[in-house]
């Protein structure tokens, strides 16, 4: 059973279909990456999950039962278009937003104070938002997203507009939330962060899901049969290699050679390893899996040419 599941979601606007039969399933306690080019329909899907708009067709299940309006109190949402009231004081504003999530004033106050101390920003409580830098405002935004201790967190482009230091802080916080048992949906363009953070992904292009599954399996399925091996100098040469094995590159590193070998038959990885071991001593052996970045570009390009 998935913690949050969207089944066959269709959303039409006059003149175009924003989502066409999209299904995703997010297992509990995992980080789910929602990927796709701009305008693919990610934000529409996220708004549907947050019940900001409703789907035309399809089903939404939260913890196994149909998603209810009151479930939003258990969601934390950091939208792509995010901001704060400029003229309002930081603390007052955070309290307001926490209470709109359904927290009682006392509880909200205590939790906010705890987060403010954790981020080292307790002195900002009485400052107006317009006095804060953009990075500082982002910290406040993050706090109001998580303060009500939601079991599901939805971050839409959380790293956009963050400086590297704050982006890193965000990553760590997201991982900590995961460790504490939260389920997280992450929409991002930053493919490095997908590899670091996500357990599962869905790739949406032109309103359709074109790829989905666990990150490791997707990367395996996109394997280009590329392997990196370290051997003694001159231990591997093109002549010694069996049919279908090619040396793509070879770099001399002291007494060792680091070679990249491509395999052009459908041999599985243990088979490749067996073949190489028979040839010479291997100091290291690893398969070079395509990066999510490459998979993203590949998959989108393929789906675009198919249509």
């Amino acid at each position, binding site marked *: 059973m998935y913690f949050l599941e969207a089944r066959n979601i269709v959303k039409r*606007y*006059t003149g175009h279909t924003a989502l066409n039969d999209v299904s995703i399933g997010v297992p509990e306690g995992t980080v789910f990456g929602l990927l796709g080019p701009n305008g693919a329909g990610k934000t529409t899907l996220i708004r549907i999950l947050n019940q900001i708009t*409703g789907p035309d067709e399809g089903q939404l299940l939260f913890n196994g039962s149909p998603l209810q309006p009151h479930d939003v109190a258990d969601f934390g949402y950091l939208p792509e278009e995010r901001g704060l*009231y400029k003229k309002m004081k930081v603390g007052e504003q955070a309290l307001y937003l926490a209470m709109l999530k*359904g*927290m009682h004033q006392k509880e909200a106050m205590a939790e906010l104070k705890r987060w403010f101390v954790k981020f080292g920003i307790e002195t900002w409580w009485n400052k107006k938002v317009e006095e804060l830098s953009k990075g500082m405002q982002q910290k406040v935004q993050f706090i*109001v997203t998580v303060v009500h201790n939601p079991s599901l967190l939805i971050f839409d482009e959380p790293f956009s507009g963050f400086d590297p230091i704050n982006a890193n802080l965000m990553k760590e916080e997201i991982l900590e939330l995961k460790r504490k048992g939260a389920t997280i949906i992450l929409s991002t363009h930053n493919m490095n962060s997908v590899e670091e953070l996500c357990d599962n992904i869905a790739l949406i292009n032109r309103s359709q899901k074109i790829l989905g599954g666990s990150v490791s399996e997707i990367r395996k399925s996109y394997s280009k049969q590329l392997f990196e091996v370290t051997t003694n100098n001159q231990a591997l040469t093109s002549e010694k290699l069996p049919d279908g094995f090619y040396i793509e590159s070879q770099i001399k590193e002291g007494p060792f050679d680091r070679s990249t070998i491509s395999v052009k038959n459908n041999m599985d990885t243990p088979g490749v390893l067996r073949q190489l071991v028979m040839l010479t001593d291997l100091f290291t052996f690893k398969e070079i899996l395509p990066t999510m970045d490459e998979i993203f570009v590949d998959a989108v390009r393929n789906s675009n040419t198919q249509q």
Partner: protein
Amino acid sequence: MKRKLSAWSKTAIIIRREYLIRVRKKSFIVMTILGPLLIAALYAIPIMIATMTEGKRDIEIYDETGLYVDSFKSGTEFIYYPVAGNLDTVKQRFLRSGRYALVHIPATEFNVPVTAIIYSQSQPGMNIKGEVKRVMGKVAEALKLKAKGYDPEVLNSIKTRIVVNTVKVNEDGSEKRGNSEVATGLGLAAGLIIYFMLFMFGGQVMRSVIEEKTNRIVEVIISSVRPVQLMFGKIIGVGLVSLTQVALWVLLTLALTTGVSLVMGEKMQKRMVEKPAITSIGSGVGASAMSSAVADAAEQEDNAGKFQMVMDGLKSIDYYTMLSAFFFFFIGGYILYSSLFAAVGGMVDSEQDTQQFILPVTLPLIIAFMSVGYVLNYPDGAFSIWLSMIPLTSPVVMMMRLPFGVPMWQMVLSLLLLYGFTFFTTWLGAVIYRTGILIYGKKPSWKELWRWVRYKS
């Protein structure tokens, strides 16, 4: 499971924020204080001007004819000193005396001399000129009548003042003395106040929606509450601010005007008592003076009559009905217009973009405002009645008609139509708002707007 706040209490939290940020603003406090001050000033300035005197002025009367000098009676403004002698020496003495002006009435060969020269070291004011004209005119009139063989008393006896009182007959047959000038004034004031308040507070709702869009906070909020909750929280919050403002205005105005009338009213009354007293001193000093005194008294009586009529008119207004009608028509009009203003705010990214959409919203209000001349002249005319029934114009036009008396059924029907129509405008406002607040960067065309209205939530 922790106990969570309900949807209603979340709306209450929104209302509280919208209310508090506004009443805490300096501009709210300034408006609250300035409003009644302006009204009090409108009320006090005419009284102040009427009671203002530059102190008493000494005027020398050099009457070569001897016909007029007795009619110049010293009063609150001027003290008259009859002087005699050769013109040159009189002038010399005047210059040395430091008195304000010298009125020279030269002898002529006519029976009734009608010229006077005022000498003064500075340009004399209009008031002394007017006073000399008035006093001399009355005496000359009497003299001329006498010359033709009429008794000046005859003139006074035929002077007629026509008094028109308006009486409102109620359905139950009871009568009430009304005053159409007072009704016009009150109708105009009530209509204008509603008009400006609808614009002012409707505009506040719109700006607040735009602010949330440009701040990009709106999506954060509507992931916690429904867009409709946010919109109504805002409308109710700003509405409560407007009622607070009005309540404070009424209280402060009452306090101020009471204070002003306590101070000024005393002066006014003194003046009213003084004037007839002065004129009566003059009586019995010859036929000419007598006639002028009588005329003065008549004028005084006339003023008092007018004053009485205004008071009657003010008393004839049913303030309870006026105030409760104001309350209900303002609330209805405010809900109607603020929901449309909220929709306009949701459609655009900045205030500069609102022009195109604001005009259709405000056009009915402007029409209502421009019809003021007609409505006040023909409060029961067909056009006036129609405008006071159509929900978009009724809050302004009905308030203009009200002091003239409006049948109960018309008022009830108009209110029913107004509140019925607010259901439509709040629905329309809400469907446009909830779509518009999530769309950035482009203004919708009218066609797109129509699509928004048809979207499912």
